[in-house]
């Protein structure tokens, strides 16, 4: 059956409007959805074939407007203006209609064909309120479909509506927002001037340009300045602004916003019955406690602690079982394959390397589950609120908390991208600079390994909690120092929505846990595997001939020391000596820059290679415990170093791109994290020795 055509459909909407859920429902795509602002930071694409149309769905970042004050709004606006999607589906939270429709007015000003999905329509009904969808569609001048994203309701209707609208079976009208006589007059004046000038790129509707010029939109002003006669038009626009400001004694942009809201209230009054004033009684009760000045922080700390306690306590048996299984697999491989390069490749390179990372899979799953619960419930935005006061003291604000949180146990890459929701470039750079300090999902195995090996299990969860605390402290102090010495100036303003609490669905949590868990597995099976093989080869070649009378063990360690990797380790050894580390640890740390899990896999390979008798092969944890060079103090110094030092390659590349791209700030990041990591580990190790700890 042939396709009738291809459609490009963009999804736009406020944060928390359930946009990503609908995107997932429509495309079946596996992607991350969270009940906090700023989840979709990069546009995501998915495809669906419906009624013989191939529909490409693009999920735009959640924004409240298209004024392009921050990076994510810019992404959304640029896409709509430049890519000209066939239809924009505006997903509005029907239970919070007025605020959600503000974006709609801006979409219509852009003269894009809009289909409105009124999401969470069940909440409206439950509240005893009623929306006349037919009427609201007429008043707004766009087709309207009620949906319930989290129950997968209204999706077929939405797709039908998209196709019908595209085929012209449904009418969409022009929404005439009445800006009032005074503004209308200035608008038509500017509109006329723009109409007479040539060279305006066709993708910009004239009326929209005129409105934006009255709003003094920097981006539009720049466009107009470049067309022939543009500067003269801008001058006229400035005159209009001055005139309007005198007339209304307020900025034109405020008056225009007021008129948009006026239009919206008119629509809502005509199509929405309000039988009950909207209340979120339970949400309010929880917030009274959670946001309390004195209780807020202890509650936040308790929630975090509960997450770690839950993760470590419940995952422990599963981790032990899996480690044991991987150990058995190693023994089996050693027994089945005759001695030689192949056996070493399989047992030491692959099982020794990747096995160490895979062993922590259950722990990672539990952690993802706990974090997903925390995100989906809506507590995340509250945590940002509670943290704002502390963040403020260190030159950041509550919104910077979200990138840090996304990075914690997740990944610094989306964390760095989430900093796009910050308005101010300085705030953004500082936030991006400290985001990689968080303990991400890839660093987690390193911490789990060493804490498991050197701190008795009752202390394990506490120690882990302490390390997370340390990562936050280091991030805050760095932010403070950066603010004080590098990025001076006022930080931008903190304003954020607190969405109503929602009870996370088990399917939602499991899906999210599995999506992230699957990424972890995939990474272990691809990148980590590849690097493990390279590391193994680095230690195995060039092969040296054991000297006469050398014991097998001495030969094995001589081989490692004189291999390529060994020589590289010996080269950096003087630098890490003062931190209590030797050349082997140096190799693991260097390799870890490729991806942080590799620190664990490299140590796995090293200890596996050093073990001559395959019968004696022991899990990495036991190997570390039995190695005299390791003790709790050295482990702590090593962890501090891992906590702070260089982000992985991918994170650095994203940092480079998002910072400008700026080579200067990327080099600064490298320098800063290296110096800080070395100093931190030095203080811990040498300080600990002075106090009489360690060997």
């Amino acid at each position, binding site marked *: 059956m042939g396709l009738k055509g291809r459609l490009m459909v963009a999804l736009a909407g406020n944060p928390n409007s359930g946009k990503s859920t609908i995107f997932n429902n429509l495309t079946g795509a596996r992607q991350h959805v969270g009940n906090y602002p700023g989840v979709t930071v990069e546009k995501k694409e998915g495809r669906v074939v419906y009624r013989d149309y191939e529909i490409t769905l693009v999920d735009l970042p959640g924004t409240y407007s298209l004024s392009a004050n921050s990076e994510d709004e810019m992404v959304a606006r640029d896409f709509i203006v430049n890519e000209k999607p066939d239809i924009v589906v505006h997903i509005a939270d029907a239970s919070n209609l007025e605020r959600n429709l*503000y974006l709609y007015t801006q979409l219509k000003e852009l003269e894009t064909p809009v289909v409105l999905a009124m999401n969470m329509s069940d909440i409206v009904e439950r509240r005893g309120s009623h929306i006349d969808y037919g009427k609201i569609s007429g008043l707004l001048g766009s087709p309207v479909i009620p949906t319930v994203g989290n129950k997968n309701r209204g999706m077929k209707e939405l797709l039908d509506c998209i196709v019908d609208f595209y085929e012209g079976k449904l009418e969409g009208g022009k929404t005439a927002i009445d800006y009032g006589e005074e503004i209308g007059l200035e608008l038509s004046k500017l509109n006329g001037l723009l109409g007479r000038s040539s060279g305006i790129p066709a993708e910009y509707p004239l009326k929209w340009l005129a409105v934006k010029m009255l709003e003094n939109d920097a981006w539009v002003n720049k466009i107009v300045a470049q067309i022939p006669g543009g500067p003269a038009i801008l001058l006229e626009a400035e005159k209009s602004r001055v005139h309007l400001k005198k007339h209304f004694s307020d900025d034109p942009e*405020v008056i225009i916003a007021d008129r948009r809201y006026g239009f919206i209230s008119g629509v809502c009054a005509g199509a929405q019955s309000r039988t009950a004033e909207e209340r979120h009684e339970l949400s309010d009760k929880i917030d009274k406690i959670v946001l309390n000045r004195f209780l807020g922080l202890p509650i936040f700390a308790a929630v975090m602690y509960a997450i770690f306690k839950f993760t470590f306590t419940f995952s422990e048996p599963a981790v032990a079982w899996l480690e044991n299984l991987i150990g058995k697999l190693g023994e089996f491989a050693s027994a089945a394959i005759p001695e030689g390069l192949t056996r070493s490749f399989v047992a030491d390179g692959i099982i020794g390397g990747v096995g160490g990372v895979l062993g922590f899979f259950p722990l990672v799953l539990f952690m993802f589950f706990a974090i997903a619960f925390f995100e989906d419930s809506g507590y995340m935005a509250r945590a940002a609120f509670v943290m704002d006061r502390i963040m403020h003291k260190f030159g950041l*604000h509550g919104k910077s908390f979200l990138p840090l949180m996304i990075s914690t146990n997740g990944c610094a890459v989306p964390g760095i991208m989430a900093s796009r929701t910050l308005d101010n470039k300085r705030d953004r750079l500082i936030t991006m600079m400290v985001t990689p300090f968080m303990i991400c999902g890839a660093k987690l195995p390193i911490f789990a390994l060493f804490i498991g090996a050197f701190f008795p299990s009752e202390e394990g969860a506490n120690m882990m909690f302490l390390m997370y605390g340390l990562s936050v402290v280091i991030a805050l102090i760095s932010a403070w120092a950066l603010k004080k010495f590098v990025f001076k100036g006022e930080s931008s303003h903190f304003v954020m929505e607190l969405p109503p609490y929602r009870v996370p669905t088990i399917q939602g949590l499991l899906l999210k846990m599995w999506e992230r868990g699957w990424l972890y597995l995939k990474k272990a099976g691809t990148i980590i595997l590849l690097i493990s093989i390279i590391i193994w080869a680095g230690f195995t070649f060039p092969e040296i001939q054991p000297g006469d009378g050398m014991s097998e063990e001495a030969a094995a360690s001589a081989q490692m020391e004189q291999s390529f990797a060994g020589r590289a380790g010996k080269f950096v050894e003087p630098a890490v000596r003062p931190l209590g580390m030797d050349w082997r640890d140096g190799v693991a740390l260097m390799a870890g820059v490729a991806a942080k899990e590799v620190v664990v896999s490299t140590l796995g390979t090293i200890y596996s290679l050093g073990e001559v008798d395959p019968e004696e092969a022991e899990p990495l944890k036991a190997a570390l415990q039995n190695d005299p060079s390791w003790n709790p103090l050295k482990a702590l110094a090593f962890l501090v170093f891992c906590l702070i030092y260089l982000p992985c390659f991918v994170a650095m590349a994203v940092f480079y791109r998002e910072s400008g791209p700026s080579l200067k700030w990327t080099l600064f990041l490298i320098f800063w994290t290296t110096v800080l990591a070395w100093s931190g580990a030095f203080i811990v190790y040498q300080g600990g020795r002075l106090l009489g700890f360690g060997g």
Partner: protein
Amino acid sequence: MKNLCDVRDGEEAAVLFIHGGRMAQQRLVELGILPGERVRMFHNSGAGPLTVRVKGSKLSIGHGLAQKIIVREE
């Protein structure tokens, strides 16, 4: 003149004007805080950010920004 920080829990106030830069103003406007709008204080501890209810949603606003929102109490 009163600003938003002076409004106690449960009290209602009408926004008179926003005494801030363009960016701050626009951020607030798109979230529903603009001259003439009535807001109800949900939580104001006197220090740090506060939470108000406006246009059916709950917003948390940093202390510095809240000081720039001039209001008239009702």
